[in-house]
């Protein structure tokens, strides 16, 4: 009960500030870079879309049972909680500051469809910056807790980011996934996913299913008090990202894929987990559900059958390998994935990557992460070069059922672990680099380089037009003046997304050799974007958040 004698709102119905007000100790929330700043959003203005004074996210600090915590809450009702330049920079700025000040926990109240298409590539880089900052914060010893219980759920880049947290708390309303039902239906057809079938949507993405397969750690009632006590309990349970934890994660994810890959509906998975009446799961109250789920959650021990059926090693290796590594390479190319070793400037390096404009599915993601883990184990400090040519992630109901976003998050954690263990990560974009697949490995590089003619971005302009309901012509016209909407590597570079562009005719092997000598491991993308004039707000906003933390918290 609050001061007016009213019941607190349900978690799923409260807006961002209400959530924070009820989740934290009463009156303890202090907002940083709040609506008083009224930072104008030029990208939305250019599209004639109304902005919001806080750009759809509230970030700040408060107390949880007397312990100081930092928190970010996304406003799902504002453009689907999607991440734009300012939105992303507010969260990244706070994550980076938290690393120095070490609060008791970082609470991330996620309610977002992912990248804000209105800000296209600026949003994509923004989410990537959040991911790196969040994994760095975890490494510094601050537990990160993701909460998913609103109407928008956590999709796209935010679906991956949620699984980068130490813990995920969900309620029945929350949904967690990579590609939303609407996107899958739009691209693959209604036979693949009927976006109007709400029961199936919640069976696929909903909190209960995610809890049962191990994608969510905690399943709670749709009440603020339930989220609050779950968060308080998890605060002390920090999980570390280590070679052991990642090895176990790899085995779990392989086990899940092996055991459930043939399932076409969540109920088959629930039955396989030993739940006698899977058709009743969605009707169970939280308490009954947790009773039924006890001891059944998770995955069977060993993978069953071969991970990938079908095509063998490809006979022709992509031309990029010969061009980058004229001194020789031992790379295997199978089903669009490159893994192996190569020699560059007289030094052996590890290679992971994709080719042939492939779309990354679960077994491919698992092979990439396995190769990263094997490299860290067998060749300490060896640079890892990531070759990026992918048209996105697999759009299918089965992939979502198994939680493909969790597999991508695992790949990111492996790369983070490699970086933290002294491996230099260098990405080379040489074909397509689109959306979630780009986020899950290429954008994790310490430096990203592009070869001219490469196509980078969130999605095709035509698809973007469909989602934003802004005509393709208008988007194209805006692309002529704004680097945010414009396709191509040159514009991505102006946003600070990549270091430099290598011309196709140039001596790419020399450029790569030089790139491998760069010693810088910090995320410089914001600064680059500001210097190059393509993404000027991100740095300013992140600095503003940091200045607010310093001012407010020293009182």
């Amino acid at each position, binding site marked *: 009960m609050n*001061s*007016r004698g009213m019941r607190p709102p349900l978690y799923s119905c409260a*807006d961002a*500030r209400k959530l924070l007000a009820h989740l934290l100790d009463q009156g303890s929330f202090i907002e940083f870079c*709040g*609506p*008083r700043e*009224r930072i104008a959003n030029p990208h939305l*203005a250019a599209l*004639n*879309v*109304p*902005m*919001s*004074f*806080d750009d759809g996210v509230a970030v700040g600090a408060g107390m949880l049972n007397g312990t100081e915590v930092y928190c970010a809450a996304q*406003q799902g*009702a*504002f*453009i689907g909680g999607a991440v734009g330049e300012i939105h992303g920079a507010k969260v990244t700025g706070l994550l980076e500051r938290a690393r120095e000040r070490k609060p008791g926990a970082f609470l991330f109240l996620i309610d977002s469809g992912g990248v804000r298409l209105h800000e296209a590539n600026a949003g994509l880089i923004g989410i990537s910056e959040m991911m790196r900052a969040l994994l760095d914060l975890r490494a510094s010893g601050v537990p990160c807790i993701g909460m998913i219980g609103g109407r928008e759920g956590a999709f796209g880049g935010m679906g991956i980011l949620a699984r980068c947290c130490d813990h995920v708390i969900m309620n029945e309303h929350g949904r967690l996934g990579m590609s939303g039902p609407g996107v899958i239906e739009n691209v693959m057809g209604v036979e693949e996913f009927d976006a109007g079938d709400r029961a199936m949507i919640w069976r696929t993405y909903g909190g209960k299913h995610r809890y049962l397969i191990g994608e969510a750690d905690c399943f709670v009632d749709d009440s603020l008090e339930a989220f609050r006590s779950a968060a308080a309990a998890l605060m002390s349970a920090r999980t570390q990202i280590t070679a052991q934890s990642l090895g176990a994660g790899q085995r779990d994810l392989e086990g899940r894929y092996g055991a459930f890959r043939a399932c076409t509906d969540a109920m088959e998975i629930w039955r396989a987990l030993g739940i006698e009446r899977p058709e009743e799961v969605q009707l169970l109250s939280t308490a009954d559900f947790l009773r039924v789920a006890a001891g059944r959650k998770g995955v069977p021990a060993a993978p069953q059958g071969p991970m990938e059926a079908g095509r063998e090693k490809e006979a022709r290796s992509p031309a990029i390998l010969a061009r980058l590594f004229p001194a020789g390479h031992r790379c295997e190319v199978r089903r669009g994935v490159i893994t192996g070793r190569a020699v560059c400037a007289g030094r052996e390096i590890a290679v992971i990557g994709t080719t042939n404009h492939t779309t990354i599915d679960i077994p491919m993601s698992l092979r990439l992460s396995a190769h990263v883990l094997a490299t860290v184990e067998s060749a300490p400090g060896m640079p890892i070069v990531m070759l990026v040519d992918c048209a996105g992630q697999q759009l299918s109901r089965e992939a979502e059922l198994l939680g493909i976003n969790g597999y991508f998050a695992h790949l990111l954690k492996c790369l983070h672990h490699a970086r933290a263990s002294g491996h230099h990560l260098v990405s080379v974009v040489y074909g397509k680099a689109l959306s979630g697949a780009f986020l899950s490995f290429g954008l994790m590089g310490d430096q990203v380089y592009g070869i001219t003619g490469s196509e980078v971005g969130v999605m095709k302009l035509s698809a973007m037009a469909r989602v934003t309901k802004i005509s393709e012509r208008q988007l194209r016209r805006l692309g002529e003046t704004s680097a945010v909407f414009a396709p191509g590597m040159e514009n991505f570079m102006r946003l600070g997304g990549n270091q430099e562009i290598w011309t196709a005719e140039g001596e790419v092997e020399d450029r790569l050799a030089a790139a491998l000598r760069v010693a810088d491991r910090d995320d410089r993308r914001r600064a680059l974007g500001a210097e190059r004039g393509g993404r000027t707000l991100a740095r300013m906003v992140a600095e503003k958040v940091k200045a607010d933390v310093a001012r407010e918290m020293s009182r």
Partner: protein
Amino acid sequence: MEKLDFTFRCSGERVESAAVSVLVGVVSSGNLEVFIEKGGDPSCCRVEVATSHGGFERAWRTLFADFLFQYDLSGYAIWINDAGAVPAVVKLRLHQAVEELMEKGR
């Protein structure tokens, strides 16, 4: 997008609050956010509206004239981001904002 800027002399119930600002509502279809902040000319109330639906200046003006006849918000500024809210919703949010302002500053 249309931007509107008004200044009103207020009458009615004086809004007293120790709070500096308040934000209510969310910018989403048929909804709006209202941000009220202390500051500016102490003798009047300034209103700035950014709306996705142009051509309703008179409706906005009438609505604020009426609202600021009821509440005296002199020395405050009202900022609005609107995504096509109908007048009844705008009124509701303004009342909510004033109520929260008074509650916050108690």
